[in-house]
């Protein structure tokens, strides 16, 4: 459950974040620093605030109340997209910044379309991209404030492992909480091992 929501959010947010990160690192345009600063500021928004805003927007008396999304999984996905987007942008920006401009020029010189060249360059930094995805995944899966507020932590419906942990701790059931934490950890470990396997041989060591 937790995983499905988080992965969906991640997959939706990633392409946009990648393109924005690319534009930020390969293009200078007026307002560039502004976008970067804004994005960095967004990173510091507590998830509860995002949750709060979403609740206000999606609540029946809010502007999008008619969609009846509050306390459903789609609402949680929206929340998680908002949470991981700035992080993904920051990390993809950083990733692309590690690529020399020559890479882009070479790709274009060799007759690649813009999209193809973007793809090639993303492959150049594939380990950084993986790291960005893993980090963002960690952030959304571990996030509790927004998930609680927007999902409502309804048993069997919008309750995730993380919100369960939060619940157990307010009950004083520490052991239960830690047990759930371990479950989450094991799942994350498995996922990371899978990622690690696909990384293949050249993961280690700085490029060149």
């Amino acid at each position, binding site marked *: 459950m937790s995983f499905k929501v988080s992965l969906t959010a991640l997959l939706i947010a990633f392409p946009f974040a990648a393109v924005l990160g690319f534009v930020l690192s390969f293009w200078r345009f007026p307002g560039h620093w502004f976008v970067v600063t804004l994005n960095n500021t967004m990173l510091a928004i507590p998830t509860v605030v995002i949750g709060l805003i979403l609740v206000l927007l999606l609540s029946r008396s809010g502007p999008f109340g008619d969609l009846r999304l509050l306390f459903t999984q789609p609402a949680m996905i929206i929340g998680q997209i908002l949470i991981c987007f700035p992080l993904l942008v920051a990390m993809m920006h950083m990733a692309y910044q590690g690529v*020399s401009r*020559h*890479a882009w*020029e*070479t790709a*274009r*010189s*060799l*007759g*690649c*379309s813009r999209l*193809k060249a973007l793809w*090639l360059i993303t*492959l*150049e930094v594939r380990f950084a991209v993986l790291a960005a995805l893993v980090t963002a995944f960690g952030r959304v899966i571990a996030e509790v404030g927004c998930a609680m507020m927007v999902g409502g932590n309804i048993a069997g419906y919008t309750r995730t492992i993380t919100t369960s942990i939060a619940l157990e701790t307010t009950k004083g059931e520490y052991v239960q909480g830690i047990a759930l934490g371990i479950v989450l950890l094991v799942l994350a470990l498995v996922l990371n091992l899978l990622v690690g396997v696909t990384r293949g041989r*050249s993961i280690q060591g700085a*490029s*060149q």
Partner: protein
Amino acid sequence: MVAENLEKRFGRTRLWHIDRLELKAGETVHLRGENGSGKTTLLKILAGLQSPENGSVLINNARVKLGEKVCYLHQQPYMFDRSVKGNLALVLSARRESAKVKQQQLEDALHWSGLEKQADQLARTLSGGERQALAMARARLCQPSFWLLDEPTASLDEKGVTKCVELVKTLRESGAAILLTTHQQGELTQICDHTWWMKDGRLVTD
């Protein structure tokens, strides 16, 4: 390829100003100039990789579109973080040709570059000369009609230079236009039809 009234500046200092420049199909031109005179910059602008402060470059009266017809070979070629074969294959991947034809082209290119033994090695571990050879083989696969070669022979040994000279000859025969820079005198400069000089911010043609 025609360029008129081209000018490149960095901030307030002008690198060069070129009244007119014409590169015709089948021509081979040697661009000379001191270090830092702006040769690389000119080639990049002609390739559409940088934009000039003034003027424009036209091919058949149309603006250069990056990556179409024109191919620029970097002074320090960029190797993608994949195998030698992978670096060649990425040029082919966009083509609409049968897998068999592609495979054939790939093998030709590999053979031409002389890097058959290193086919599966990571391109970034190649030696300086090998990189240059791979970059030429890679560009060859693009079959552009304008070639902008930036010091192709700088780190090549004699065999490599000979291969480069042959490449230029073949290209010229096939009707491509070539503009190349190099600081070395030798076979390569001798086969050029024209020599252009970059001097004091102007282009002097012979």
